[in-house]
């Protein structure tokens, strides 16, 4: 069944159709959240909020745009909002510490590699380096990288999700790549 057919059923109150949509997209939505937020708990929370909003707005559903465009738009929006709140908390906690204390409470410390027996230390470290580099990007650039690199969306699809022009997507990605390259070159011979 297509997304549109499923949504028509959801609109008519069919719970199993909604479950089918969630099963179809949960992995994607959770992982977008994960790229932004860096931990699974937060990622699943924003993903649930995303689907909840989809469900609550299903009644006014008009099959104009692709469903996944809406899902990506909502999850991106929610993840950025959550990041913003975390930054506030972090600013607050840094202030409390006189700005030279330890890391803020929400600092995304990479998971202790010792807790991940099936993942080598080196691998966890390399992942943390990539994450830190991504986190230095401005929100919009980071979004283009996540949707392009990890979600495999075309520039046109990214433009729809972000509601910007295709050429804006192209230039944001270009700038993002230049920045990432600088940030990662210290760790990589071929960059």
């Amino acid at each position, binding site marked *: 069944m297509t997304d549109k057919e499923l949504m028509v059923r959801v609109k008519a109150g069919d719970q199993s159709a909604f479950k089918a949509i969630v099963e179809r997209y949960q992995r994607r939505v959770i992982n977008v959240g994960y790229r932004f937020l860096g931990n*699974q708990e937060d990622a699943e929370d924003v993903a649930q909020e995303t689907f909840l909003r989809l469900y609550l707005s299903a009644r006014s559903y008009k099959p104009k745009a692709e469903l996944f465009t809406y899902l990506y738009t909502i999850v991106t929006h929610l993840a950025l909002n959550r990041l913003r709140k975390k*930054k506030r908390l972090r600013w607050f906690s840094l202030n409390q510490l006189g700005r030279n204390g330890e890391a803020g409470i929400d600092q995304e410390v990479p998971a202790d590699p010792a807790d991940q027996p099936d993942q080598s230390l080196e691998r966890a470290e390399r992942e943390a380096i990539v994450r830190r580099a991504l986190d230095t990007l401005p929100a919009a650039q980071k979004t283009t990288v996540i949707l392009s690199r990890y979600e495999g969306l075309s520039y046109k699809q990214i433009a729809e999700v972000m509601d910007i022009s295709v050429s804006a997507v192209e230039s944001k990605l*270009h700038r993002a790549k230049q920045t*990432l390259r600088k940030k990662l070159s210290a760790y990589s011979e071929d960059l």
Partner: protein
Amino acid sequence: MRCQKVKRKLSAFLDGELSEKKASRIAEHLSGCQNCQQEVAFLSSLWERLEEMREVDPSPYFWTRLNARITQAEERSFSLDRVRGILDRLLVPATAIAALVVGLWIGGALYEVHWEDKPNLWEQATASLYLDALDDFPAQSIGLAYTELVFD
């Protein structure tokens, strides 16, 4: 084509986002320019490097938890419907009821998704990202807060 111009387009070229005509011009330049070839190698290995961030598997309870949230939200909306029913009988003008119900409904939520006239969520998101964030800081520390937001 100049290298400068080619380099700006390489990313889109590698992503397969250029028209055939443009792509073939880039390819032609690349075949004779080592400098730009090197740039292609950089960009490719950068993209490979990003692969190192793993993907997570949805937890087995994802649907169960979501379902519980839906039930909760529906119960809230049910009680709102009852409020509306009572107000209706009290002959409060329909628009006022609608406004009240919508206000209550949205509650603490930041926004509603509208299928018909999709607002520019992105602009909303990014606008609130910066403005709200600055609002929260004491006036004297705006500069500090801004630095934190932008350069952190």
